[in-house]
């Protein structure tokens, strides 16, 4: 783990155009950025490309980095923006997703219909099925919801940190988490085993 002083110095040197200083920052954070982009794209090649693009963009823009947020948060923001743009371009949104996008516009009062009951059967294959389908369900979330869920649950960020990365309010993060969870539950209903 890099010390704050060391990181600041590397950022300063990178701002002056020192590639090696920037590469040290890359080596520090590349694993985390790759995991984030993978969580969002579910594709190793796309994740690697987006990680590379994230660092390229970061180097180009490092002179504008004011240090208001941490360097990692700043990198996360670039990675999430690039990933969301990528998802918007490459993902064929189903009617389901369009419905969900509409939900965000309608506001928090909108409610998804809960379908079916909760199965109480607990089978081992069910857990495996759940995991497989969870990845699929996460992929099918609207990009902004998927990014929020990924940052909060998989990256372990607080609502405040996620809000900083996503450029929205903490309340929006909270609401998106709630809606994302409802969507996931609806999708995964057949595989959920209540212990």
């Amino acid at each position, binding site marked *: 783990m890099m010390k704050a002083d060391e990181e600041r110095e590397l950022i300063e040197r990178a701002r002056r*155009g020192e590639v090696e200083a920037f590469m040290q920052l890359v080596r520090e954070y590349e694993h985390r950025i790759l995991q984030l982009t993978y969580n969002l794209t579910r594709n190793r090649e796309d994740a690697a490309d987006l990680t590379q693009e994230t660092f390229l963009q970061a180097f180009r823009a490092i002179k504008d980095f004011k240090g208001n947020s941490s360097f990692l948060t700043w990198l996360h923001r670039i990675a999430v923006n690039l990933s969301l743009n990528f998802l918007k371009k490459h993902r064929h949104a189903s009617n389901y997703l369009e419905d969900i996008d509409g939900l965000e516009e309608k506001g928090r009062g909108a409610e998804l219909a809960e379908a079916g009951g909760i199965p109480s059967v607990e089978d081992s294959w069910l857990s495996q099925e759940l995991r497989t389908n969870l990845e699929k369900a996460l992929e099918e979330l609207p990009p902004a919801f998927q990014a929020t*869920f990924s940052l909060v649950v998989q990256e372990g960020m607080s609502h405040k940190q996620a809000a900083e990365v996503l450029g929205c309010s903490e309340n929006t993060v909270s609401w998106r988490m709630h809606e994302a969870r409802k969507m996931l*539950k609806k999708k995964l209903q057949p595989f959920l085993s209540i212990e």
Partner: protein
Amino acid sequence: MKCERAQKLISDRLDGKLSSWRQKRLDRHLTTCEVCRDYLLSQEIIQREALKTEKVDYPPEWWRQFEQALQAKIIQSTPGEEVISVLPAGISADISDIKGDKNSNKKGRSWAFKTHARQAASLLVVVVVAATLFLIIYIGRSKNEELPLPLILSYEDSYFNLSQILAEDEEAASNLARSLEETIIEETLLAGPEGTFIDIDYDFKTDNYEMVPEILQFENLNSEEGL
């Protein structure tokens, strides 16, 4: 508490964002609502499984290649000499060649664009200047052609009226003469000792400011000039 509200609080609770007094309210609701208890359990399962999602990692060799490729792209994509490269000499030379080609191509295109833009701008300036000159000349001529007659007539009328007034009103004539005299003296004094002295023989009688009839005979003056 409504179930929708409780489920929102469940979500906040899973994210560690729930205040203690809200937690108490939620707990109270959960003791009485089976649907929300099931919802909480479902969400805990989803959360647990989401944390088990595949971790992406690659061997060190993959990362080394990734970093080299990134470094090369950074140097390629940065124009000018701002980048301080630490790549091995061979790779640096290759990248310099690529950069050179890229820059020269870019330069060619950008120069071509600038040339066209400059020509267009020059043409535009010429057109604007020509249009401005045309307008100035045209308006100037128009003024010369249109103004004189009514203006001359009005001046002629005013002089005629003035001469009539002065001929009939002795006091007005003497006031005008005095005013003219004061103006001339004032201007002479303003010209200073080294200024051009205007020797005007205004031929006024000092005791009784009677105007010399010839000066005020505007009708005669005008007729001499053929107006």
